[in-house]
């Protein structure tokens, strides 16, 4: 990425994912969404084209790209559908990347190749019934006993945690007390199917209905001591870093949704007639769409900028928060306007904008609410 002009290979990737989304996702995803069914076949195809390994080095089965490549893929998928985008985002950004960054060589070799092929999905268990934004308030515990971690507690809204191909969930848990009395938080890898780890039935959600989200519970769930991810007591710092990056990825999904609204509307207003004219000839409609395009465009610049800073190794906390904030609000605003332009059809689930409307809201909540983003931005300004 040079400035804001995509290098040739990034543009080729973007175009490939765009073609994939239109040819493989768009025609079928509405049915999966309506049945609230996980699209295994699409995920397998995404795996075969290497999307789950985009930012992972080749020696672990990845594509040797970077986080920006992942974001481009997420944006293109989200232009068509957010369920498949969030499935990719959660497995790569919240599971594979922390495993690559903080994991031991053995953990990397064990999990990353299958994750990169999309044959296994990873999930990240952070949020709990009693703590979302206040992530440090978690209550799940893990105590060391005879060379095993014994985990007790529960986790909420965990993406990718209950599919047939879920490989593991990384669980943030209290593993003790620090000398100053604060909680010691660590992250532990819990393979799917471990006794004591149970997955509740799927949530009934407002949106993202073709993605997999469950509540998880752990009752004396034992995993080997070696399943600790990264250093003991570094869990909090690890997930703060994971979430900073994740915000850029969610921003990319928000931009995709916001742009998808524009694309759908431009097509529709060129066909739909009212009062003797195509509705695209009316300035009231043109201005709405011009505003939508403006929001999508500026939000894209914000996430490109945050990703560029991150890849250069510069601080990017504020930029990532800004990108997440503007893009999720752009997605929400654009979905609202797109639905308005489509009128009654926009309220029907069979039209993409109906799905966009339902999928947009969570972007202002997941991986840091808009309030948390504002808090982070203010804090970065020294307030």
């Amino acid at each position, binding site marked *: 990425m040079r400035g804001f002009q995509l290098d*040739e*290979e990034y543009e*080729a*990737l973007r175009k*490939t994912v765009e*073609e*994939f989304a239109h040819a493989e996702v768009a025609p079928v995803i509405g049915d999966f969404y309506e049945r609230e069914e996980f699209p295994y076949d699409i995920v397998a*195809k995404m795996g*075969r*084209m*290497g999307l789950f390994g*985009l930012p992972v080095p*080749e020696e672990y089965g990845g*594509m*040797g*790209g970077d986080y920006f*490549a992942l974001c481009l893929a997420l944006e293109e998928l989200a232009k068509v559908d957010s369920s498949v985008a969030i499935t990719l985002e959660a497995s790569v950004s919240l599971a594979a990347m922390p495993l690559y960054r903080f994991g031991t060589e053995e953990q990397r070799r064990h999990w990353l190749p299958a994750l990169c092929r999309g044959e296994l999905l990873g999930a990240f268990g952070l949020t709990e019934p009693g703590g979302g934004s206040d992530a440090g308030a978690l209550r799940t515990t893990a105590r060391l006993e005879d060379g095993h971690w014994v985990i007790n507690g529960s986790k909420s809204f965990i993406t990718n945690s209950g599919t047939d191909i879920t490989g593991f969930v990384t669980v943030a848990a209290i593993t003790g007390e620090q000398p100053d009395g604060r909680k010691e938080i660590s992250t532990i890898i819990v393979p799917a199917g471990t006794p004591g780890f149970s997955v509740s039935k799927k949530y009934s959600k407002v949106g993202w209905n073709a993605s997999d989200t469950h509540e998880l519970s752990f009752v004396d769930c034992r995993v080997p001591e070696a399943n600790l991810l990264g250093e003991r007591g570094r869990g909090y710092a690890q997930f703060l870093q994971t979430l900073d990056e994740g915000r850029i990825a969610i921003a990319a999904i928000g931009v995709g949704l916001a742009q998808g609204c524009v694309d759908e509307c431009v097509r529709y207003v060129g066909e739909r007639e009212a009062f003797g004219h195509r509705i695209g000839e009316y300035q009231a409609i043109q201005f709405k769409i011009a505003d939508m395009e403006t929001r999508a465009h500026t939000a894209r610049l914000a996430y490109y900028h945050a990703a560029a800073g991150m890849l250069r190794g510069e601080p990017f906390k504020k930029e990532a928060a800004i990108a997440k904030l503007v893009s999720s609000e752009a997605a929400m605003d654009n979905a609202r306007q797109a639905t308005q332009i489509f009128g009654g059809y926009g309220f029907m689930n069979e039209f993409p904008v109906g799905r966009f409307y339902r999928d947009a809201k969570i972007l202002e909540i997941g991986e840091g609410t808009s309030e948390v983003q504002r808090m982070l931005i203010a804090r970065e300004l020294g307030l």
Partner: protein
Amino acid sequence: MNIVVLVKLVPDTYSERKLSDTDHTLDRDSADAVLDEINERAVEEALQLKEAHGGEVTALCVGPDRAVDAVRKALQMGADKAVHVSDAALHGSDVITTAKVLAKAVGTIDGVDLVIAGNEASDGRAGAVPAILAELLGLPQLTHANKVTVEGDTITVERATDDGVLHLQATLPALVSVSEKINEPRYPSFKGIMAAKKKPITTLTVADLGLDPAGVGLSGAWTAVLEAAPKPPRTAGERVEDNGDGGTKIAEYLVGQKLI
């Protein structure tokens, strides 16, 4: 097994396609250009054969400079190298001159065991180049393949027709043309996209191939397109009320159309 796969840049079937007003050749500026879909399947088949039997896949393209996009797509999918014949003299070539140029270009590639082509391109739709090329190269031709298997130096293909399935066999080297039903082409991975940048593309002119520029292109073509008009829009159908004589009226209509 060394495979040459023919690739062609065609106007995207989803964009407006038209011929130029002056010489009735393809107006390349009016449409987005893509690697022909059937060629993607030809490349996929070549890659699957390479993955099973080893060897090298060379993408071969005859087309203007921008056709390098089709070549690059083949390289991104996994072809090892490419030969691109680009020359202003080729403008307006018909199927025979195109096949002559392809035959010469195949000759520049060492140890070719198999040539794979799509059975027809989505623009011209003559569907004749693979057969002419096989004839010029003196290779057995197994056209319209739905399935290809190679064992040792024996190649077997299945060709589905309305009447049944034909099983064709030949000894390598040979030429195969594939149908659109043969496989599902892969999407290039990011690794493939990055690797493609480093793969060699040999660009050749008509003179490099030892051909006379006057013998190719519009001047060398045996056929010329005189006129092209878009298909007229479909008109509204004729409504027949059935007052007990519906069958007769339909029959009369079909007779009027010389259909029965």
